[in-house]
């Protein structure tokens, strides 16, 4: 492999690659930049150059009850989805790691399916189920949808950490007279801890942003993405930029928290971000 960087400066290939990377990053960040800049624009959501720098839209946002109500709903949905995702994703990971039963391969693929399936299919199939059993649509149905779709996140994260756990530790614990319960809490759980926190953070943020499944399962109360969606259809104001900017900043803080967790737990649990998107081995 020829080095791209020579002693006396950059090679031509190196310069081409660097320019390419810079352009790609510019493309990736252009919408984010536009969003943030125009959240402070006095004259609407577009129009170059932006002028009349103002925090007016943020002020408007803080008095907007419908938005805050939707934020509250979204947080409730996300927290409940984390609970469902963990309550079923952890056992599923344990099952995939240490049991064998007929149809295990099919079970694994099924659990992972909603993550790669367009949200419309998950949403509609559940909508039909709720209609057949006469369940009224509400935040609860959205929670069921998110929880079910995101079990896979917990399963992949926890499964990856279980693969790194030395079985001998658990064997020793059992040989020394601890029961399964004690072994689980003293050995298995502490080992999985970081992957569980990572999974919880991921499920929380994914649920907060989810819209395709919620679109079909929502009742009268809106989640934040659906509230924004409704406003987009009525006409757009920089208030949407303002709320999006705030969400972005919070997401950044969440990644930062996650990143620090990963650094702290390197070796113990170093699941890649969004590894959930890849199939298990």
């Amino acid at each position: 492999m020829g080095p791209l960087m020579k002693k006396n400066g950059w090679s031509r290939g190196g310069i081409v690659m660097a320019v390419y990377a810079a352009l790609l990053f510019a493309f990736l960040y252009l919408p984010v930049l536009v969003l943030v800049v125009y959240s402070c624009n006095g004259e609407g959501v577009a129009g170059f150059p932006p002028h009349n720098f103002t925090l007016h839209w943020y002020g408007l946002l803080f008095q907007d009850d419908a938005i805050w109500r939707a934020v509250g709903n979204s947080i409730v949905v996300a927290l409940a989805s984390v609970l469902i995702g963990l309550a079923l994703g952890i056992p599923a990971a344990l099952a995939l790691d240490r049991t064998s039963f007929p149809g295990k391969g099919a079970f694994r693929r099924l659990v992972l399916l909603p993550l790669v399936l367009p949200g419309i299919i998950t949403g509609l199939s559940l909508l039909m189920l709720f209609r057949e059993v006469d369940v009224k649509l509400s935040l609860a149905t959205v929670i069921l949808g998110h929880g079910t779709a995101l079990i896979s996140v917990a399963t992949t994260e926890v499964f990856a950490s279980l693969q790194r756990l030395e079985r001998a530790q658990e064997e020793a614990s059992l040989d020394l007279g601890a029961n399964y319960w004690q072994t689980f809490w003293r050995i298995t759980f502490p080992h999985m801890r970081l992957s569980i926190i990572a999974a919880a953070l991921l499920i929380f943020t994914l649920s907060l942003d989810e819209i395709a499944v919620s679109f079909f399962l929502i009742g009268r109360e809106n989640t934040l993405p659906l509230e924004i969606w409704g406003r987009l259809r009525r006409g757009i104001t920089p208030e949407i930029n303002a709320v999006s900017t705030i969400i972005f900043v919070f997401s950044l803080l969440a990644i930062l928290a996650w990143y620090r967790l990963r650094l702290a737990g390197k070796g113990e649990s170093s699941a890649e971000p969004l590894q959930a998107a890849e199939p298990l081995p």
Partner: protein
Amino acid sequence: MFSRAYKIWVTVPPLVWVAAFLVLPYTLMFAYSFWSVSAVGSLRHAWNFANYGRLLGHEVYRQTLLRSAWIAARVMLFALLLAYPLAYLLSFHTRKGKDLLYQLVIIPLWVSYLVRAYAWKTILGTDGVLNTSLQYLHLTTHPLHFLLYSPFAIVLTLTHIYIPFTFLPVYAAMEHIPRNLIEASHDLGASALQTFWRIIVPLSMPGVVAGATFAFVLSFGDFLAPLLLGGPSGVMISNIVVSLFGAAYNWPLGAAISFCMLALVIALLWLSERLEKRWARS
């Protein structure tokens, strides 16, 4: 070493849940696809293939299906073409700041999907950021209308959204390529280009397949970007499904289309799993 009770406790709850909230709904969707709606709007449980017949017979469905596949194929291609060199650069030619650059690729993933689509709308519109900038710089005198409400806008937005998704598996595959293979190839006299084509490309294929599947499947089934940015010429198959479940009120026909999409996705996942395995072996 684990007791029977232990195994039952970890296996049964997720199995039951998956059966109730995944298998049962998919089955129900399949059943719906054979039913029909009466003139007064009630569901008739008459079992026949009429819905599938309509899908095959009507030009609209065929055209929309083809358009969706063509949009998804372009998104897949562009996302891969843009993400692959970046993954290569990061994996093989970056020492300092590798972690930081990696994070910089990931961060846009955390900007809400809807918000990114909305941002593109404000950029591409007639009075959007792009058009007003071009006029400000006197590069154009009139706004360009083809930017928004076209398949172009959908492809651009979805490519932007799926670049990080395709980058991740490709980068992961490249990171797993043993570095001594590269050295061996170099020592045996291969040029940088030969090493790239003979070693790096084949060994990164599993990641490419995973990323391509992801980008294709998710953009194929998208209905929000076309609603927001597509206009009349950018209607995709999921938009038809949404209207069949809403105003057009024909759930069985909508279920038939959804089931075809589900079958297509499963077939693609199966195919990509086989391809990944094959490349992983050779």
